[in-house]
């Protein structure tokens, strides 16, 4: 994980050196520690440590220390995490993608429909769903980059449309192994691909959905930190006009960012369907807000230009662990919502740059 954090550390060198200058005269080690703690990554770590500390205190009769709890946390955060990967790229450009939950639902019901009811081979169904997700994402991308719609409006429209589309193709019902053909009712076998995606490897210690999440994460990280396109996204978020004048293909880069987010929704939808063993047209409602919170808690700025995948990972783990800790302690819903709100504020407050 250190490798992933190194990126933001370097980018934040400016802020870090200011903090370092303030701490001037202190011992070198203390200085670098102060720099690490005041860097964006350091502060994002602080949020995670705070939440883990809560887990240690409220450990629910030791349930927090069981290996299974952590494995489940990673699995439960995976779908959100996959969405957050696409969301990070979009938010770096200064945009936002509200449509992720809706597009996830489209992908989820399509995957169930194609494999369960229409007996498509699994690989074809996966390709179709990834394509469908990307296509929906590219629609909002085109609206934003070419028709110059505000990202909030364009993705809000897509969110509504996609939810309706998911309901349309399913007729408002969940798509499961229970198939009605005319008057006859058939209960089909659950397709193998569902069982595979929802299984675990490494002696039951790593869920396949977590592996899928990690693959998406690494892909997004490489694109962002090591690819020209990633640099372009940062520069667009920093100052779009300046980026355009210095020859960055702004339209194309933004279009691709939303398309990538749509692709991630396609992946997340397949994972969601596999975990639910069905396609639910209501799936993913409200997930966009969780994904945005994860990215923002990590320290990626909503104004764009600042942030990284490493930070998003910290954000994903922070929210994931918070949900898990509240759940194992069987905290009532009302308190859960209030506590989550307070923790989000605390985490973002620690993020706030005091050096300005």
């Amino acid at each position, binding site marked *: 994980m250190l490798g992933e954090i190194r990126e933001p550390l370097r980018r934040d060198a400016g802020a870090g050196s200011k903090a370092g200058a303030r701490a001037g005269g202190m011992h070198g080690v203390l200085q670098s520690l102060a720099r690490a703690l005041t860097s964006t990554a350091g502060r994002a770590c602080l949020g995670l440590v705070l939440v883990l500390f809560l887990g240690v205190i409220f450990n*629910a*009769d030791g*349930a927090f220390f*069981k290996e*299974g*709890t952590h494995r*489940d946390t990673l699995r*439960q955060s995976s779908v959100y995490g996959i969405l957050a990967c696409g969301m990070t790229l979009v938010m770096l450009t200064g945009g936002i993608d509200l449509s992720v939950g809706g597009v996830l639902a489209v992908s989820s019901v399509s995957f169930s429909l194609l494999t369960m009811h229409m007996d498509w081979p699994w690989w074809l169904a996966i390709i179709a769903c990834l394509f469908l997700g990307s296509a929906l994402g590219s629609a909002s991308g085109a609206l934003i980059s070419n028709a110059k719609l505000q990202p909030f409006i364009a993705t809000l429209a897509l969110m509504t449309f996609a939810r309706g589309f998911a*309901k349309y193709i399913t*007729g*408002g*019902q*969940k798509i*499961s*192994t*229970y198939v*009605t053909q005319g008057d006859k*009712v058939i*209960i089909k076998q659950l397709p193998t691909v569902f069982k595979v995606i*929802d299984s*675990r490897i490494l002696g039951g210690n790593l869920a396949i959905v977590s592996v899928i999440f990690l693959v998406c994460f690494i892909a997004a990280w490489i694109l962002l930190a090591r690819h020209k396109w990633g640099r372009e996204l940062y520069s667009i978020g920093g100052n779009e006009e300046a980026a355009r004048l210095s020859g960055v293909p702004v339209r194309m880069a933004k279009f691709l960012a939303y398309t990538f987010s749509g692709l991630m929704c396609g992946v997340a939808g397949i994972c*969601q369907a596999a*975990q*639910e*063993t069905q396609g*639910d047209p*209501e*799936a993913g409602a409200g997930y966009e807000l969780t994904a945005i919170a994860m990215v923002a808690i990590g320290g990626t700025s909503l104004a764009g230009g600042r942030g990284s995948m490493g930070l998003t990972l910290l954000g994903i783990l922070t929210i994931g662990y918070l*949900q*898990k800790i509240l*759940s*194992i302690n*069987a905290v*009532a*819903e009302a308190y859960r919502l209030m506590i989550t709100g307070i923790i989000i504020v605390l985490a973002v407050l620690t993020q706030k740059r005091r050096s300005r």
Partner: protein
Amino acid sequence: MRSITKCIFCAALLCLLAVFPVFSAPKYTIGMSQCNLGEPWRVQMNADIKNEADKHPEIKMVFKDAQNDVLQQRAQVEEFVSAKIDLLIISPKEAQPLAEPVSKAMSAGIPVIVLDRDIIGQNYTEFIGADNVKIGRAVGAWLVKNYGGKGAKVVEIMGLQTSTPGQDRHSGFLDAIKGSDLDVIFRADAKWLEPDARKEMESALSRYDKIDIVYGHNDPSAHGAYIAAQAAGREKGMVFVGIDSLPHEGVAYVKQGILTATFQYPTGGGEAILQALKIFKGEKVPKRITLGSRMFTKDNVDAGGVAIP
């Protein structure tokens, strides 16, 4: 010139539309205002109404979906009234705000059948609904009868606790297990949602080594809990019970051996049409009908379940 042609064309079209119903007119038009078609149970309610109405050619159904919006539903009721339908079936979103539009329909001479949720003031022809407390109690009684006396540990995956059905299914259940040795060790609000139920059940599993019974306030919750237990390799010998019994959800889960039992929460859709026909014939109908529930287990599911007294 062109606009005149357009006008004439439109007028002709309107005349045609106005005359058209005379040829194929069913005798009665029934308007159905559904508060939200986002829930499978309500989709089923509309399907039940349609199935029953299709058997009676004298009835023409018009369905409207208020998309979970009180004001939209209010507007729909008003539209139905001005369209002078013969009877209104409404499954209201909320008790208070829809009382006035419904009583306006009544004073316009349109009989109203209220489904599932009651309306404040009770100014309607007939109410048809089921009793969640009773069903929750039936679940509890059935569990005590079959699994009592062995110190069974129970996980309760609750429906949204700010909703009346969620509260009623909880209180009825508590009432029935009072005094028995069933021990509820873990209780969480999954808001009727399957993915949430799975997460909560995973927490219960990592916290407790012995869980015997899972009571889900709806079938998807029980199903989500089952998937969690299965992933942990602990589903064998665990009892999963849910409520609602939609044909493609709870009943299918029982057939597949996932749920041990499911208790029906009837939609009353079919009953509403039968009652409407009685009203059209001028027969007297009761002010209130409480629907009976059915229970499905592996043994009786193919025979259509058994009625609960």
